[in-house]
């Protein structure tokens, strides 16, 4: 899991440009950076102090990260009913070690809740993706949404494109953005209640009607699964790797 790889992820070999970028941004942002994570050859994650959310965006924009990719959020809590509430099939394939979601887990911020790259302490975490079209680099900024207020400052004045993304995040997760003039629903009807992308919001269609995709496939007993898989792989290799 990502929690074990905070700053020392930088010394994983093989991605000098991103390491240099990480060093540069850490210096630019100073103590606003809480934690970082680097996946060599993939992406760079920075977790910043939510109180410095606006500053971070401004600093990055000046550092030529002026292309607004997207803004969204993740609800790290575990769905009260488990992920697949409607079938035993899915229950059978839950991870055994309990590292991911446990179906009986009703507390949203239990330590077993899935953890993220660059860490995180709160239920909701914001995501912001910025590109630099001159340097051909990109960075993903994260920030924990404070539990007590459930709000961060708006980025609307720095990136006008964030306007709609914040509206969408507000209606889907219930996160507020201080200073946003009009956090009205963008997709949902005005009379809609609740925040659909929260994990505790049930997907009614799945609750009232069983999922056909699960019903009509044959179940594999757990003890046979590994065996079967090995068999399939052996056949695959015998046939010359699928040529």
């Amino acid at each position, binding site marked *: 899991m990502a929690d074990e790889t905070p700053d020392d992820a930088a010394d994983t070999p093989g991605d000098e440009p991103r390491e240099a970028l990480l060093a540069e941004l850490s210096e630019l942002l100073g103590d606003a950076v809480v934690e970082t994570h680097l996946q060599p050859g*993939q*992406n760079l994650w920075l977790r910043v102090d939510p109180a410095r959310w606006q500053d971070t965006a401004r600093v990055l924009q000046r550092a030529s990260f002026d292309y607004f990719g997207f803004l969204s959020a993740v609800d790290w809590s575990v769905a009260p009913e488990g*992920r697949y509430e409607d079938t035993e099939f899915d229950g059978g394939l839950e991870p055994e070690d309990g590292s*991911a*979601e446990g179906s009986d887990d009703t507390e949203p911020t239990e330590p077993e809740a899935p953890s993220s790259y660059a860490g995180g302490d709160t239920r909701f975490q914001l995501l912001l*993706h910025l590109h630099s079209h001159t340097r051909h680099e990109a960075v*993903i900024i994260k920030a924990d949404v404070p539990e007590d207020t459930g709000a961060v400052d708006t980025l609307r004045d720095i990136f006008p494109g964030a306007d709609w993304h914040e509206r969408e995040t507000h209606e889907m997760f219930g996160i507020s953005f201080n200073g946003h003039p009009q956090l009205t629903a963008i997709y949902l009807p005005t009379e809609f209640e609740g925040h659909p*992308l929260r994990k505790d919001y049930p997907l009614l269609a*799945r609750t009232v009607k069983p999922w056909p995709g699960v019903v009509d496939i044959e179940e594999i007993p757990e003890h046979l699964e590994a065996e079967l898989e090995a068999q399939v792989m052996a056949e695959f290799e015998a046939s010359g790797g*699928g040529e």
Partner: protein
Amino acid sequence: MTATSDREQMAYVASQAADARVNVELDTGDMTLNIGPQHPATHGTLRIACQLDGEQVILAEPMMGYMHRGYEKLCEVRTYPQCTTLINRIDWLGSFANEVPFILAAEQLMEVEAPPRAQWIRTILFELSRIANLSLFLGDMGVQIGALTPVFFAFRDRERVLNQIEEVTGGRFHPNFDRIGGLKDDIPKGWVEETHAVMTKMRTFCDEMEDLLVGNEIFQTRCRGVGVIPQDVALSYGLSGANLRASGVDWDLRRDANPGLAWDQVDWRVWTHPDGDSFARYWVRLQETREATHIVDKLLDGIPSGPIMAKVPRIIKIPAGEAYVSTENPLGEMGYYIVSTGDLGPFRVKIRTPSFNNISIVPWVMKGVYVPDVITILGSLYFILGDIDR
């Protein structure tokens, strides 16, 4: 009234001018004009509420959600292979191109890589989707101006490309062909030759559009200098694809952030235009379509041999982690942010669609334009509603 002499004509003009002077003092503000939800320029159901002052738009507010399907929530209760079925329906004109970034992100998390042959065929199908998607725009833009012929040409020739996609994938609109670790099938016999022929036809189609529209005086007057988006505004709104390149930003994810497909194996160029107006957006897309036919031609000649599937387990379980992969789709940057907790399906999928950002500039760009230009600007921004209301 018909003027019979020069004098009468002059008197008529003078009286009209006098009337106009009177009208200036009348209050013309506060009229609301609803465009849509059903309008051919909206490619779906988008409503734009315009506040008008006479012929000028003071405020244009797009209203979406008529078609919101909640794919981000639905993906959370599906397995990875099931997700591609949904994803196909986001930008329904760029069918195959939708699947690619999702599959690439999943592959990145699983640390598998598709064999070279699969990557090449993926790239070819990706570019074919681009041609199918953009050729419709090239014709459709004519309709927004009032020229009906181009769109019939576009539908006629787009069919050829769709046939090629169908021959490989079995689907015209929703191929569902990309798999984690490779592709479902190899290409059929004789397909390479046929596709070469289709590409030649598509270049002819591009030439026709150039003759019919780009060179047309009415088209130019309606589009040049209309809906200008400067470079810094385009960047801060996160515009992507041809909309960004038409504002003079030389940026293409195929070249600048290639996630591993075969674009770096052939020579091609990124087209940009400095003007940032509706005309520039049309022109860039036209060049891009033509460039795509060349890319396909070159790729077809160099497809490597080998398997089309990497070794992946039968039941796909993706290790815990996060990945964001975006590609240059026909409409712009489409990306998927996948959060996996080591399960059969994603924990969270954020779908970054190009049209959502592209259309968020509408309130800015529509300010002060005239009513007829609303439609041409909307047409030239080119969005698919499924791509906004995902």
